[in-house]
């Protein structure tokens, strides 16, 4: 069954889109990542123009994150206070990121920089998470409990303006979460994703938040950042395809619900290993694309546009 997408201006199979939305939705619900880092390349692969894919994906992430966050709110696994602090940082970062993106576009190598950004961040985060969760899993298996980390004293804990984050059980300065939010906002704008795959590890490893709270809080923040991005794309580039978004959303929201349930059955370490493996797989694919000799050396793009 084919459907013609009015903004992307091409005809695609509805079931294929629906399936893609569903699979990415499951991941979104399980890991608290928007899934943009998977969906955007998948949309490129089926021939959606990159500008439309990035903008529409932002809109879809709003829906799947909203659906996911509702489930997390009922389970009381959203740290609203932390979410708002992250969000403030995120919006500042996203606004700055759009400027950086425009500047990079002037130089003309934005594609390469975006890809290198992906490889660098996915590589670092994926490896760190994989090693760490493997160690945690091994310790859990041999009967030893991983040492409690709640009262570590790092330099981040010596900063002023401390705030109580009751849901996360943290009493830390507002600056680390604000900076994490900003960094994620910048990267989200440059890389065209929600940024959950960076934020989730940052919350666990930099802020020391419990894994259970991290997913819901990350989803909460992603809703607002991606809603902001959608509006920016809709008003400046006219690249949000409502038809494409609707199909992806329908698949995505159902997937996200399933994913949230699945996430509750899996142990935190297993969850992290799976996410780490996925992050590393995407990173490896992108790196191979840059290293291997491409079959087609040429590419076609709209004049003056982002290819």
């Amino acid at each position, binding site marked *: 069954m084919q459907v*013609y997408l009015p903004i992307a*201006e091409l*005809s695609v199979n509805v079931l294929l889109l629906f399936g893609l939305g569903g699979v990415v939705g499951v991941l979104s619900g399980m890991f608290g990542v928007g899934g943009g880092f998977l969906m955007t390349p998948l949309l490129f692969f089926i021939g959606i123009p990159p500008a439309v894919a990035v903008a529409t994906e932002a809109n879809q992430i709003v829906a799947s994150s909203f659906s996911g966050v509702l489930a997390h709110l009922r389970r009381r696994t959203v740290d609203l206070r932390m979410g708002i602090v992250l969000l403030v940082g995120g919006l500042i970062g996203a606004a700055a990121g759009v400027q950086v993106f425009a500047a990079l576009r002037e130089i003309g190598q934005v594609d*390469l920089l975006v890809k290198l950004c992906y490889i660098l961040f996915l590589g670092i985060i994926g490896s760190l998470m994989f090693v760490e969760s493997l160690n945690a899993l091994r310790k859990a298996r041999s009967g030893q409990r991983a040492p409690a980390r709640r009262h570590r004293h790092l330099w981040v804990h010596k900063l002023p303006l401390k705030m109580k984050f009751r849901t996360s059980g943290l009493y830390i300065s507002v600056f680390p979460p604000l900076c994490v939010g900003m960094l994620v906002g910048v990267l989200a704008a440059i890389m065209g994703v929600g940024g959950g795959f960076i934020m989730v590890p940052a919350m666990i490893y930099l802020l020391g938040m419990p894994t259970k709270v991290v997913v819901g809080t990350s989803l909460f923040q992603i809703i607002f950042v991606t809603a902001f991005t959608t509006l920016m794309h809709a008003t400046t580039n006219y690249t949000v395809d409502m*038809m494409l978004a609707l199909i992806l959303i329908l698949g995505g929201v159902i997937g996200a619900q399933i994913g949230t349930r699945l996430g509750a059955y899996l142990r935190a370490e297993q969850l992290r290993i799976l996410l780490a493996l996925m992050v590393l797989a995407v990173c490896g694919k992108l790196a191979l694309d840059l290293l291997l000799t491409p079959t087609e050396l040429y590419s076609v793009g*709209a004049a003056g546009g982002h290819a």
Partner: protein
Amino acid sequence: MSRAASVAMRGAVVLVLVLGIALPAIAYEKVIAGLSQNRISITASFGGSELLIFGAVKRQAPIPSGPPLQVAISVAGPSERVVVRRKERRFGIWVNSEAVEIDLAPSFYAVATSVPFSEVLSPEEDAKHKVSIEQAVRWLSAPEGVADPEAFTEALIRIRSKAGLYQLAEGVVQVTDQTLFRTRISLPANLTEGDYWARIFLTRGGRVVDVFQTSIPVRKVGLERWIFTLAHEQPLIYGLMSLALAICAGWLASAVFRYIRS
């Protein structure tokens, strides 16, 4: 009748006679053609289309002797400017290096002929009428700073041919008794909006005898039209609507799942 007018008219009569004597076949063979669809509507379920192009040759005299009549048909989508980039290995990775802007690249271009292209049109006539794909894709002024700009147009044609956007079908136009002709051109699903032009060339011995040209408007209709117009004319409302849709869908899915579980 004034003297000047009568001189002018006599001149015109002489001109017609001279032309008629010099090119006896040309003046008497004209194309009359029709299309199976004179407009194409893109609906939500649009999945490509097939265009039947048919016609006849109108003559005032018997079929001239000499090389047989051949037909070339081209269908062109709206032209646009595109950038073709070439990758190069730098520091071990493949990056876009050189880029060439091509001024005129039709979004769709199909050529169908009755016999191999080189037998239908001579290179001079092709250059004059811009019939072949190679002639349809071109720049207005040759790009600077690149040693081999032709490689970039070749790449564009190669990429778009692979996607079915550029088609060359030789020997598919059926010509019956040097009078009737017909062919089918398949339009892909990823058709862009705009005015498409169908051109039909009658040729003899590689020279163009007559040309017929008609436009085929390709338009989005219904929901497709509405979404496209809203997105471009009321982008803020459109953006907010997209968000509202997303939020509603998210909430609805959550509510439905909770209902199923309880």
